[in-house]
């Protein structure tokens, strides 16, 4: 199961980053990533990224926090809580 979440995380992280690079290239003229090639890249960039983009942050955060990981174990609270920052 951890390997599935590893696969999901590494792909989603990578393609969300590529989409962010594309956005910066469009809006600020920074270097653009290469165009997507193949069905896999087209799926992640044309389907996954837009779907992620329309989800509210609270839902995205809930999904991310539902994944197995160190964040689900006990950690000391932030030193001065002022509510969620993001």
């Amino acid at each position: 199961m951890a390997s599935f979440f590893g696969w999901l995380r590494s792909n989603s992280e990578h393609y969300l980053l590529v989409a962010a690079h594309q956005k910066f290239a469009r809006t600020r003229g920074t270097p653009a990533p290469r165009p997507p090639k193949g069905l896999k890249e087209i799926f992640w960039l044309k389907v996954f990224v837009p779907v992620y983009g329309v989800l509210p942050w609270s839902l995205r955060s809930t999904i991310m926090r539902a994944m197995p990981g160190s964040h689900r174990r006990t950690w000391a609270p932030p030193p001065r809580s002022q509510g969620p920052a993001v």
Partner: protein
Amino acid sequence: MPRKTVIIGGGAAGLGSAGGVKAADPDAEVVVYTAYEDVAYSPCGIPYVHGGEIPDFERLFLAGKQAYVDAGIDIRYETEVTAIDTTAKTVTVAGEGAVGYDNLIIATGFDYADPGVPGGELGGLYYVKNIRQAMEWDKVIAGTKRAVVVEAGPLGLEMVTALAHRGVETHLIDPHPYALATMADPDIMAPVEESWRELGVHLHFNTTLEAFLGDGNGQVRAVQTSEGEIAAELVVVATHKTPSNALAAAAGLKLGSTGGIIVDGQMATSAPYVWAAGDVTEIPHGLTRTPLQGLTGSHAYAQGKTAGTNAGGGTRAYRAVYVPWGTPAGKWVIGGASFGEVTATALGIPYVKGEAQGISRARYYPGVQPVRVKLLAEPGTLRLIGAQMVGGGEGIKERADFLAQAIRFGMTLHDLSSMENVYSPAIGALNEPIAVAATNGVAAAAKQG
């Protein structure tokens, strides 16, 4: 009978753990197994010896072997641990067999991600990690005319600069559109890339490694990339860090989505009497709580101290991280904390931004350097969520450390815009760039309504 703690790994996390155990329980028996010939040196310093900034490798050693003997820490060099049995509370050690423990700390560190291309067995592929090997590779670099660095991550940045300083014709290949693109913003990296070009470095972005090509005698002669072939006698493989988790996985310890061992704030794993620390673990980010793996040596050492203290019967907590970072790159120093604009955009986190171009000392004082600061804050509250900087070097590290604490303690752009700062011509300018950036951020937020 003293309690016995076995530590697997002799890097920053492993040695931090050993010290932590001894601090909590001076009578504890502590055995450290390392696959290497040495412990207690700074692998992070290796690129700077290659680059000539540090004159020799000996300076990277922090303590001699006798220091650990004197401290009552039994280090078994060049000794591999091949298995862990958390039920029997034993580790299997090459040449020793099954060795019992009361407490176990796993600090096995990282491996470079497998490039996954043909030719990985060729000679001339350098994975920067071990100091004894680095000493030999330094001789190779001395005779190298052309080199390729694979991937522009933190180590790749350091090695590109080091090789250029050594007069090697250096090519950097990276699949992203600019350097350090997984964590830094393009405007922060632009001056770095320009300075590399001035040093004669050839930059190949949006370029994917496809194969290492051999010369017929087992040595690399070139790399095949998506954009063509690049001849090279030396290839520095600086792919991203992955957790060296094979032992932990085989022992049934729970791993997270990063592949790192799942730990809590005590650095305890999912198995009783087993702790873990360093690059083999994953640690939650302080804002998003998303676990991160592959942090810095200072994180590894502090985690080791925590694991060791708790394994030794003491109490110590490690906390979620806000990731202050910094590194020289080309003729610049870059740094930051938490998010940059690109990572915030990728995650879909909204932000307002304040930027300032400042200076490190009084404008008239010799040695004054530029300092560019960019701050990101949550819209509305203007609570700081990230920062990135580029400058001549002075104060980037200290600002990154400070800004990570500012994020951790929930400071806002209002707080930072009214911060006090040291003014002394030789060490600080009248206007602190952080305060100016924060003031600009407050103004930008007001304009956005």
